[in-house]
């Protein structure tokens, strides 16, 4: 028999080769997996075993033939794992004050994608860009591989022993020990910490949020007697007034708010009413860009306006008018609108000033919103940090009172205004322990680093809102030698327990009794673990008391003079914890369309007056910042994002942008996120490159985003969409329209529901192995995102109307790109998809030119396994996140949105196996599935009953560039604004 060999090595020395390969693989695995105890345990998501039937292409140089591929079977195949079929596990995400109940897609043992959990009443199946991107944090090269002490490796046993010894001595000396954490909403962790605090003498637990809701919590303490954040129900509101609160982007529970906000604004199925949104803010936030009426104001003006609003409403209601400063803005229309919608309105403020929040509470009370649109039964718990506490900690450290500090999920050295002092004080401590998963500025100051497991590797539970619980379970065994901090804390006070058991016991004693339906705990546990959430209804005993409002009004200061610099969290990076996540770094800011940097957004008029243009550099109170001219930026203000300028974050996050936390001010003990009377001057002859991925603002009068107002729409549903009607009437063609046999996949995007948050872009990136290309290449306009969100401004540049439009491949029936490919790499499918076979593409790029939507992307470089693009895909660990169902594109080929054809194929196959037609809504593209605004609908246009067919028949439906007669399979629904006019 003829035998073939694939390489010289195999021919000459097959055994050695094999041994070498096995050795190499073993080395790889052991790098990933320290601690053999995991191997022996038969836990179901064991890494090595689930590594299972993966193909380790151990490749050999010096051969023309392809490398020998290896196939490693399971030793013992876990029952629930089938090679080639993904499993979904429900778990929960809570980091950086953002909560989401999620499902994690695990393929062959690797978590690769996050989806929203539809049964959660909080996130309702939606996710945010940060939640989507969090799966990449699991595979972050920067993660600690094991415990260390002063930079040297240490075993857990030794670390435990040493710390225990120190703690014991402190216990006997009654030295003060502080546990500093970010907000913890895990009931079982609360319990664990309580045990620790109880048993360890003189221990204080401080919760700390870098961007805190301290003012809001304290105001509600005054108004309601409890430090709570009420439950806002935007879907019930007719009018929403937000003072600087970017509730669609970064303020509190954004996914939930986006869900309910868009529910209140969508006009599908003949709905004729929508909520009206007023926004007062200085920078152009995501919420502001979605607002119907937007008032650009200076941050310091907020109080006066609120006071005026309060007085106007109080006056109309016959209440007491509070004396105080005068407002510069006439709010009588707004007051009227609010009064017309009593009990159906929400007024919120993002301010951290207790007085302002008290006024807001007063207004909401006057309008009767409590109990209606603002509920107190299930208050939001995701921010609990009180700013005074951390400041007190600093002074106590200085005075030497605190002897030991345990830092968990907090990075005060970076994100505290006095971070440097913090660092210095921590270094002086007798015992400092960080539980951080990744290196950061604070771990650099700590002696012991006892890395916690990633949230996808941990057991946990969460209570984002009172009475609403969710569970978190590990979807992969810890990749590194990490341990949940709860276990450590308990261990040090003498309780050795596996956290899963601890959690289970806790739920058995607490949550289990809060329901009556299931009598067996095991059954209860399994059900809740499978579903992920456990929700109970609570009753509120809180009542509003007008205490302090008068005093608050008197404390409102009048607007300051000079330029004010507002500090905000950006949509992608948030408070900076995720600075090392390349997906997030590369996600363009929804409004400014800038990635990889923070920048000083300056008003248009100011820029003109001072000769500033984009990428110039200004100096604000001594800090040099790149300029971005932001239409809609309020007069005399500059906005800069927090969360950038990390010093120690990892290869991606280090030194991207500038750290603005030292500029965060203080007022009445609370953080103040703006600075008054900023000293601004231009740095002459200096420019700074910004990765701007959209440079043109205007639609140039073209009908790209069709828009109308609610009144017009009610009069005539076609309004704003006249162009479509005209074009369709005029359309002539040489050829017959394409005919499809079985399916015709299509997508409808409701521009009224799209807030532009960017979640879809990251969801798409995670699903389709889209590569990160770095700042320079983004600046060169080569961003790889298959789905981009176009942003246009119209009308007054000082306060423009903003339109968002997600654009991906339109899968045209008459696709211009298809004609021009010489090698048949991009023909049309029988199911209406515009296909691209990467392996056939030779890269002439003609299709890119001939796509009027410019949705095709080119692999200008080798982005995977290239030292020059050292982001996510240059290391074996980083590549673990790749979706095995999607080809990783090589250099020189064109790629684009495939409408997640891998998902279509998977579900079709399932339907065929089960011998049934595909169910409506069964197939969801990555963007559609996780959209927090339910703006994207995917389906079969040949099925007349499908949701997509109905939306395509909607009068608001139009196609982008209809006049080119490209017959797109993607439809857009006109954006309707609810302006007063």
């Amino acid at each position, binding site marked *: 028999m003829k*035998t073939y060999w694939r390489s010289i090595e195999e*021919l000459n*020395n097959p055994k050695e080769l094999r041994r070498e390969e096995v050795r190499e693989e073993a080395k790889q695995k052991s790098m990933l997996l320290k601690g053999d105890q995991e191997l022996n345990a038969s836990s179901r998501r064991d890494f090595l075993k689930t590594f299972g039937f993966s193909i380790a292409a151990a490749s050999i140089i010096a051969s023309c033939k392809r490398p020998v591929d290896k196939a490693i079977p399971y030793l013992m195949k876990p029952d629930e794992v089938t090679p080639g079929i993904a499993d979904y596990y429900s778990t929960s995400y809570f980091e950086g004050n953002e909560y989401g109940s999620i499902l994690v897609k695990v393929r062959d043992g690797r978590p690769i994608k996050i989806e929203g959990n539809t049964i959660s009443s909080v996130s309702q199946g939606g996710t945010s860009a940060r939640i989507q991107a969090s799966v990449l944090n699991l595979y972050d090269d920067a993660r600690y591989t094991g415990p260390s002490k002063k930079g040297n490796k240490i075993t857990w046993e030794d670390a435990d022993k040493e710390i225990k010894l120190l703690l014991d001595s402190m216990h006997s000396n009654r030295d003060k020990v502080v546990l500093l954490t970010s907000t913890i909403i895990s009931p079982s962790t609360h319990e664990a910490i309580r045990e620790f605090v109880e048993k360890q003498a003189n221990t204080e637990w401080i919760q700390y949020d870098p961007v805190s809701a301290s003012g809001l919590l304290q105001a509600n303490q005054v108004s309601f007697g409890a430090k709570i954040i009420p439950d806002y129900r935007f879907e019930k509101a007719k009018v929403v007034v937000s003072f600087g609160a970017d509730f669609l982007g970064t303020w509190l529970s954004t996914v939930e708010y986006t869900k309910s906000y868009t529910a209140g604004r969508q006009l599908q199925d003949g709905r004729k009413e929508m909520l009206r949104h007023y926004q007062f803010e200085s920078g152009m936030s995501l919420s502001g860009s979605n607002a119907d009426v937007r008032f650009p104001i200076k941050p310091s003006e907020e109080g006066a306006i609120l006071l005026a609003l309060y007085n106007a409403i109080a006056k109309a209601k016959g209440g007491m008018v509070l004396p105080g400063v005068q407002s510069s803005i006439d709010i009588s229309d707004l007051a009227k609108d609010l009064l017309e919608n009593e009990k159906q309105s929400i007024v919120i403020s993002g301010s951290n000033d207790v007085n302002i929040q008290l006024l807001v509470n007063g207004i909401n009370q006057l309008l009767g919103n409590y109990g209606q649109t603002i509920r107190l039964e299930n208050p939001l718990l995701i921010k609990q940090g009180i700013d005074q506490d951390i400041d007190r900690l600093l002074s106590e450290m200085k005075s030497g009172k605190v002897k030991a500090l345990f830092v968990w999920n907090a990075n005060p050295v970076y994100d505290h205004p006095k971070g440097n002092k913090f660092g210095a004080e921590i270094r002086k401590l007798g015992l400092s322990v960080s539980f951080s998963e990744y290196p950061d500025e604070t771990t650099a100051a700590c002696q012991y680093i006892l890395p916690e497991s990633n949230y996808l590797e941990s057991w946990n539970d969460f209570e984002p809102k009172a009475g609403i619980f969710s569970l978190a379970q590990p979807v992969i065994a810890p990749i590194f030698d990490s341990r949940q901090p709860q276990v450590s804390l308990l261990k040090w006070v003498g309780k050795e327990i596996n956290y899963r058991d601890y959690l289970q016991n806790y739920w058995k004693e607490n949550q289990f009794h809060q329901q009556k339906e299931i009598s067996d705990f095991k059954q209860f546990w399994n059900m809740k673990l499978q579903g992920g959430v456990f929700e109970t209804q609570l009753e509120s005993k809180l009542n509003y008391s007008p205490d302090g409002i008068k005093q608050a009004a008197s404390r409102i200061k009048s607007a300051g003079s000079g330029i004010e610099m507002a500090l905000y969290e950006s949509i992608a990076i948030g408070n900076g914890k995720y600075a090392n996540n390349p997906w997030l770094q590369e996600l363009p800011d929804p409004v400014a369309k800038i990635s990889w940097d923070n920048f000083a957004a300056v008003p248009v008029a100011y820029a003109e007056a001072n000769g500033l243009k984009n990428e110039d550099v200004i100096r604000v109170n001594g800090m040099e910042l790149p300029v971005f001219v932001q239409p809609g930026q309020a007069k005399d203000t500059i906005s800069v994002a927090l969360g950038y300028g990390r010093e120690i974050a990892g290869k991606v996050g280090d030194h991207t942008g500038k750290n603005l936390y030292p500029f965060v001010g203080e007022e009445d003990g609370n953080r103040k996120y703006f600075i008054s009377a900023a000293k601004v001057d231009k740095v002459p002859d200096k420019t700074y490159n910004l990765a701007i991925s959209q440079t043109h603002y205007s639609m140039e009068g073209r009908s790209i985003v069709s828009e109308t107002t609610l009144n017009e729409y009610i009069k005539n549903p076609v309004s704003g969409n006249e162009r479509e009607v005209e074009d369709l009437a005029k359309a002539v063609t040489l050829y017959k329209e394409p005919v499809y046999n079985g399916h015709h996949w299509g997508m409808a995007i409701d521009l009224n529901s799209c807030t532009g948050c960017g979640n879809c872009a990251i969801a798409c990136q995670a699903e389709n192995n889209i590569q990160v290309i770095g700042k320079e290449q983004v600046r060169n306009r080569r961003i790889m995102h298959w789905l981009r969100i176009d942003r246009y401004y119209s009308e007054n540049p000082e306060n423009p109307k903003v339109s968002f439009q997600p654009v991906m491949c339109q899968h045209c029936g008459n696709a211009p790109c298809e004609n021009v490919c010489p090698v048949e790499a991009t*023909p049309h499918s029988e199911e209406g998809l515009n296909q691209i*076979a990467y392996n056939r593409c030779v890269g002439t790029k003609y299709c890119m030119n001939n796509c009027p939507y410019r949705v095709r992307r080119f692999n200008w470089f080798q982005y995977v396994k290239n030292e020059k693009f050292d982001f996510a895909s240059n290391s074996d660990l980083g590549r673990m996140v790749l979706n095995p169902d999607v080809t990783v594109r090589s250099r020189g080929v064109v790629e684009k949105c495939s409408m997640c054809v891998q998902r279509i194929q998977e579900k079709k196959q399932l339907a065929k196996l089960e011998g049934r037609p595909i169910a409506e809504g069964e197939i969801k593209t990555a963007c559609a599935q996780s959209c927090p605004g339910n703006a994207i609908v995917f389906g079969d246009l040949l099925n007349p009953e499908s949701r997509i067919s109905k939306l395509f028949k909607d009068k608001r439906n139009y196609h982008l560039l209809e006049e080119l007669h490209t017959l797109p399979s993607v439809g857009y629904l006109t954006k309707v604004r609810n302006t007063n006019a």
Partner: protein
Amino acid sequence: MRNVILPGRYTLLLKLYIARVLVFILLISGIPLMAISSNEDVKAVKENPSHNDLQRGERFFKGLLPKDRTFESCVSCHILSKPDTMNWNPSAMDIALKYVGKDFADFQTAVMQPSGKKIEASHKDFKIEDEDLKKVKMYLDELASTGPPAAGPTINQLANFVLLIVLMILALLDLIFFHKIKYRLITVLILMGSLGFQVKMITEAAIGLGRSKDYAPDQPIKFSHKVHAGDNRIDCKYCHHTAEFSKSAGIPAMELCMNCHALVREGSRSGKFEIAKVLEANETKKPVVWVRVHNLPDYVFFSHAQHVGIAKVDCNKCHGPVKEMDIMRQHSDLSMGWCINCHRETKVNFKDNAYYDSYLKLHDQLKSGKLDTVRAVNIGANDCARCHY
């Protein structure tokens, strides 16, 4: 072997690229670079026994010593080179690797007091001094670190190709300048013939690039599909049980092997040696690393479920007569044309599967007789995005 690098796509791409560039060079310039071999010696990790000992051990192993030997030489069963056919006895290399880390006593027991019918039968006449056996062990240990002796040189395509080029140059020179050959037709024929042959070689090399029909690598265990699927009539899907519903047919987990091999511990031909590897893998929790036979490129998504579960394609259709294969080999060339042409012919079970109910137009055409049968190609099986995404 410094060259073994991390598994992954980049090397593959690089290599494919190099390969393509080579073909490109071949195509335009006709300079062949078919196989460049490098044979690096592996440095032995452990201390070296004396050369003399090794030589003696080798002689014993190869049956040159002892001179008055009445029994078979080791090498007659435990061959040194790679066999062309299934050799059921463990190869010298196999044994060397197994005992490299073990001490002499184990080895001695295995040779002199073996357990297992087959080995007992063949080893029963053995009379070897301990001292000599130690040398044999030394030799084998050395073998384990150096690998088997290199195979003799092969005449590769390159030589032929160069020869043809030389021939062509000579013919051309003669045709233009020397005119030594009287009949010009002869030179022209030589030219044309050589050129044709070269074109054929290049074309075959180009088509063969990335193809590996009849690829039959040596596996870590001498697993015979003939014995399991043929002689013992084990159903394919007993082991490859995910074929019907998953993309991957699945390589059976080691525990599955144990279903039978918990009892069957000795093969009729291989004795205990091969089956012992399965048992060992289970004990040491180190899965056997098989060599993949059927490799599709990374950009091809093939689903067994679609073909086996839905279309009910017989395994043999693609994998060939597995029941007759001792050494598993790739039966089909797995080229794109092979897929495409099968799709053009294969009929779809259109009426019985309710999934196809939504294909209204095709049902109409069937009814009206416009279409006699629906073939895979009619429902888009040859769309790019069926396999490439």
